[in-house]
């Protein structure tokens, strides 16, 4: 898109003091141009939709959506232009009004509401920043520095935020808030947080771009399902087994692949993910093929009691054991705590391993693996360890997934899952634990909250990733604190970019 060519006539845009006036014609022209580009993009992407008709596939036009996005782009660009020309305050008020109207008044379509709320919100944020800082435009370096400082603050605050968040997650099921839907969303979020933390070991710490993480998730899920199906083993026996099997598959893949570098490595892992899925589809006799496996046993209360109303022979019923009223929610709450505990194990592992030679070697490998070899570090073993451990955690998550769903099929382990988990890690900021949580809330939580807009999910997802790549290539909360300090708290480590 074009940047407005305002430089010659207005070298600076003063926010306070003398204003050079607003060049309406140029601003409107610029906004119109942006809207035109948006038109070209939205007609094929948003304006047309294929529908399943009895006579076959048909195409349906969706003019309202196109118009809504055009208006949004036009007004947004206009707002930005005006902010640059010293009209930040009026724009702020207008944008807030827009967002308010979108929130309160009934709207003909959900799309329009979202457009008003989000669009108004973003412009308002931008205008508020300008009003607050007195500067109309931040340079990339400035923005980076600000975000870095913010990320550092979050990192330091995470010492308090972390335990509070865990405590909140722990008491959530006990509050009256916790209905079936909230718990289900909680379980979903925690599953992705666990997967994100697991993949973070490989991608964030060891710096190996693994595009096939879902393969280990699948290995874990199918390990449990098949072991239960063929040998009747219980969840608590299968959980460690699934972890071990996933770790073995990690080593198996890692051995030939880890000598590859960068892009080649990423492509091979992507292939591995697909191979696992295709095996699951085609080995019909063993895995059930595309029909998947159903009737996977639900977890018991640590092998002591069962969550069903009438448990099988020789098993106590959970509600009777604890003298409670029977409720189907008990199992959900138990699953919730199970995944919370599993996720916390991964988190605790990562926090600790970063302070051990193993974790430091991973980070060193990410920084420069040739230097690592010159220091006598066995690169293959270190990378294999990262791969196997991350795979093991993926396997745990997989067997949890199998026992929660009670049914699995290869459908659940497509490449898009790998992409989502990777997006969570990259978006959050590679290596940042709290970043993974924030990114999961954004990537999984937001679409879940706006279910009605399912059609636009991938579009919004893609747009979000592009924005992040432009604004914050290192991820939202990418900030690294040294794992060991010589001068303790006395001298604060100098933040990135401070020297030179």
């Amino acid at each position, binding site marked *: 898109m074009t940047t407005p060519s305002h430089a010659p006539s207005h070298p600076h845009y003063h926010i306070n003091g003398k204003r050079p006036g607003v060049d309406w014609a140029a601003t409107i022209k610029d906004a119109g141009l942006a809207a035109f580009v948006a038109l070209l993009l939205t007609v094929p992407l948003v304006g047309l939709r294929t529908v399943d008709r009895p006579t076959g596939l048909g195409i349906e036009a969706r003019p309202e959506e196109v118009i809504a996005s055009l208006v949004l782009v036009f007004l947004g660009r206009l707002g930005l232009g005006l902010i640059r020309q010293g009209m930040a305050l009026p724009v702020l008020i207008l944008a807030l009004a827009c967002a308010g109207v979108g929130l309160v008044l009934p709207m003909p379509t959900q799309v329009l509401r979202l457009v008003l709320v989000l669009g108004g919100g973003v412009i308002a944020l931008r205008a508020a920043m300008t009003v607050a800082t007195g500067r109309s435009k931040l340079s990339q370096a400035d923005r980076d520095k600000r975000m870095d400082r913010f990320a550092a603050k979050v990192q330091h605050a995470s010492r308090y935020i972390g335990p509070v968040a865990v405590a909140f997650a722990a008491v959530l099921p006990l509050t009256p808030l916790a209905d079936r839907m909230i718990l289900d969303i909680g379980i979903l979020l925690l599953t992705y947080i666990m997967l994100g933390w697991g993949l973070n070991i490989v991608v964030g710490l060891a710096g190996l771009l693994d595009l096939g993480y879902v393969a280990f998730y699948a290995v874990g899920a199918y390990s449990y399902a098949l072991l239960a199906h063929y040998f009747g083993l219980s969840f608590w026996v299968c959980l460690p087994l699934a972890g071990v099997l996933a770790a073995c598959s990690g080593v198996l893949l890692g051995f030939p692949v880890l000598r590859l570098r960068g892009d080649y490595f990423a492509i091979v892992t992507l292939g591995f993910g697909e191979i696992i899925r295709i095996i699951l589809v085609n080995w019909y006799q063993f895995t059930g093929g595309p029909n998947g496996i159903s009737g996977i046993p639900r977890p018991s209360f640590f092998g002591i009691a069962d969550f069903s109303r009438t448990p099988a022979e020789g098993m106590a019923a959970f509600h009777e054991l604890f003298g409670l009223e029977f409720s189907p929610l008990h199992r959900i709450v138990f699953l919730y705590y199970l995944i919370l505990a599993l996720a916390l194990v991964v988190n605790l*592992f990562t926090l*600790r*391993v970063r302070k*051990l*030679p*193993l*974790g*430091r*070697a991973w*980070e*060193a490998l*990410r*920084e*420069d693996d*040739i*230097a*690592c*070899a*010159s*220091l*006598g*570090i*066995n*690169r293959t073993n270190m990378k294999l*360890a990262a791969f196997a451990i991350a795979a093991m955690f993926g396997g745990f998550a997989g067997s949890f997934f199998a026992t929660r769903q009670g049914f699995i099929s290869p459908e659940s382990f497509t490449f898009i899952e790998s992409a989502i988990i990777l997006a969570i890690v990259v978006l959050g900021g590679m290596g940042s634990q709290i970043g993974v949580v924030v990114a999961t809330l954004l990537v999984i939580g937001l679409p879940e909250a706006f279910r009605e807009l399912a059609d636009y999910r991938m579009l919004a997802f893609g747009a979000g990733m592009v924005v992040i790549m432009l604004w914050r290539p290192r991820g939202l909360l990418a900030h*690294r604190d*040294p*794992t*060991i*300090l*010589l*001068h303790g708290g006395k*001298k604060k*480590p*100098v933040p*990135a*970019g*401070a*020297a*030179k």
Partner: protein
Amino acid sequence: MSAATMNTEKPLLSVEHLTMRFGGLVANNDVSFEARAGEITALIGPNGAGKTTLFNCVTGFYTPTVGRLTLRHPQGKEFLLERMPGYRIAQLAGVARTFQNIRLFGGMSVLENLIVAQHNKLMRASGFAIAGLLGLPGFRKAEHEAVELAKYWLDRVRLTEFADWEAGNLPYGAQRRLEIARAMCTEPVLLCLDEPAAGLNPRESGELAEILTFIRDVQTPQGHRTGVLLIEHDMSVVMRISDHVVVLDYGRKISDGTPGHVKNDPAVIRAYLGEDEDEALPPEVAADLNLAQKGA
């Protein structure tokens, strides 16, 4: 014969008939020389002479086409370097190196760089991470010792106050010194430095020379002295601190001896000033050359 080769003690490193070919290009052609513990052996030569290639062979990044590289520990243990994989040479044989274009762990702190250098020792102490994860006390002690060693070398290269900085944010000269400290933290018997003075100002290269002579002269806790193999273009540094100079040109060794000997070797002067005969030489060099040839 030079003073260096008169030493009767067995050399720390013997390079014998080393040849390294890349397809048709012969980067090292039948090079033989020796380096001793407690000495600085300088490796000089024009650009593209094959100095870095020789380093890569010694440190296991390349496997030589022909030749034998023997490293003798003070305790008498011998290692045939050309048969060992790269990381093993650093781990077992105790050869550490720096790189021509600095390779630090830029995103990690200065102290962390030095701790990573002690990886193998710490890995054992942490029970391959298992005891460490469980928080057993053995690792705590080993880590404390590792920090002490790091502090010692930080002090030597005068980076103590920068210990908690991100290594990538250090000024250039400090990065060079940190790379040397990191190599020393592996407690090597042979330290290979690839152009450590490149890009330093005269004051900084003076300090570097001091650090290198300190490394050469100090007795390690294990009771031996470290050998230093130094590639350097800055002749003032080379001539001042090295005990023994080896000159390469087009992959061949053309001279070998004390700095004084090499400085006056006509072959060296020719290599540095070009093959053209006397008229291309400045008069004072030509006079030197004539003198040296008469003396020989």
